[in-house]
């Protein structure tokens, strides 16, 4: 186990959530139509993630193994309800903008993924560092993607016009298809960087670099199922 600093900083670049660990795609795609929405969503996620990590880490020894997922969900859901209320009370326009994606933070794989992979095995101060780091990394990515889409897709940044009236915004980017394409290209860029770095340092490439959502149990299981099906088919043919 690393130090607080290393647990914190890994979320900022080495394992930055939606770009490296492909976690929490739905809000990443849906709310990044502008930089401001990305930032707001990120703030809500920081709050939930950091607190849920700490709480889960605190109660990790008393939770029975069989119902641990239910406990994680209960804790995360309470925090999400709290965020919902706070957001309505103090940032109502943002709440309206983010819409259904605020309650959906609870099923964001990032929360359960970190709970399962980190908070349930580590002491609270490390869990807090991990949660904050991951949360801030998530916010940075969302703001980055939101800025990219807003600047080119609408010609503004945080609502300020950038290029003047002669700029014809490439509005493909702020529509649904643009979200997918933009995120896909950014992920490809991150992969390209990993490959390039590995080659330059003469290291073996992490064999899992494109395995998809690493922290989320669902995807791992999915690959197992796919492999199993393939085996079954081969068996049937032979």
């Amino acid at each position, binding site marked *: 186990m690393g130090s607080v600093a290393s647990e914190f900083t890994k979320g900022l670049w080495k394992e930055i959530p939606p770009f490296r660990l492909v976690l929490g795609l739905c809000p990443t795609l849906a709310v990044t139509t502008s930089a401001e929405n990305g930032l707001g969503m990120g703030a809500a996620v920081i709050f939930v993630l950091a607190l849920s990590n700490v709480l889960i880490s605190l109660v990790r020894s008393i939770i029975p193994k069989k119902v641990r997922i239910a406990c994680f969900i209960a804790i995360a859901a309470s925090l999400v309800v709290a965020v919902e209320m706070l957001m309505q009370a103090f940032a109502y326009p943002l709440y309206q903008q983010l819409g259904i994606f605020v309650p959906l933070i609870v099923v964001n794989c990032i929360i359960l993924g970190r709970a399962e992979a980190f908070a349930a095995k580590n002491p609270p101060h490390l869990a807090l560092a991990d949660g904050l780091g991951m949360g801030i990394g998530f916010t940075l990515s969302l703001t980055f993607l939101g800025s990219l889409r807003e600047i080119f897709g609408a010609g503004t940044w945080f609502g300020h016009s950038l290029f003047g009236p002669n700029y*014809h*915004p*490439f*509005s*493909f980017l702020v*529509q649904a*298809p643009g979200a997918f*394409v933009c995120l*896909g*290209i950014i992920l*490809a860029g991150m992969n*390209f960087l990993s490959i390039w770095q590995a080659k330059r340092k003469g290291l073996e490439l992490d064999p899992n670099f494109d395995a998809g959502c690493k922290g989320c149990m669902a995807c791992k299981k999915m690959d197992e199922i796919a492999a199993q099906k393939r085996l079954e088919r081969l068996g049937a043919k032979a």
Partner: protein
Amino acid sequence: MVNQQSAFTVTAAPFWHSGRTLTGDMYRLLLVLLPAALLGMYRFGYDALTVLALAGLTAVATEALVQRPMRQTPSAHDFTALADGILFAFMLPATAPWWIVVVGSATTIILGRMVFGGYGGSPVCAPAVGWCVLTVSWPAYMDLNGMLLAWDLVEPLSDLKYFGAESVAHITPGSLLLGEHLGALGASQSGLVLLAGIALLAMGRVRWHIPVSYLAGVFGTALIYWLIDPQLYAPPLFHILAGTTIFTAFFLLPYPSAAPVFRIPMLLFGLLAGALTILIRVYGIYPDGAPFAVLLANLCTPLLDLIQPKPFGGR
């Protein structure tokens, strides 16, 4: 990773080359499109030439630029990028501003094919992707009527969309065939495009199933609507000759990697795209839905291709 070319190399010598090459195919494609392009230039003037040249050039340059980091051997000499660029330019208004042509042409190459590994890997028709991206981004600059104000003619499909079937009743099939109306740069020269398509068929570069079933799909669906209410819906022949229908049938739909390869799937593919074209023209917000219909049909290609002939002796 069973991902590289090695996936294909499982044969034993000797081989016999059919003589058909990619370069040759593209060369013929560009050649048969030349008359339609020339007529487009004659009708829309110098602008048309600029758009064609810019689109072709951008396509080739983008491909070359993207191939470097992808570590592919440059393949500008096989004309595929040029052909994609020209096919894309054929669907633009002749007066499209330069930046729209550049962005669209680059999108065609990058999103349409390079992200999937280049020509032959693309699951969708690349020029249709470029056209659709531009249409959802800058509808005003892709609006044929609005962009070609300097000409006294009208664009039949926009008129149909906004003013109803009466406003296009006076347009005869003959004038549509000759392209005596506003329209996309090359694609609206229906007569010459049709001749080009027939030439490709005759040369054996395109099989008849897709174009014929597509035109049948367009005709059939339009006929149903026309029979329901001839006052409200345009006649089927109008839908076949107006807009980019014929161009779509011969040049977009049979896009090599994106169309099915078996006979029955090809026929279904064409019919599906034809029906979708009319549905988009009747209900959608875009006057000419043909490239969208191409994309939608392309998405179904892998599923359609499941309808395969049984191998002899297979179970």
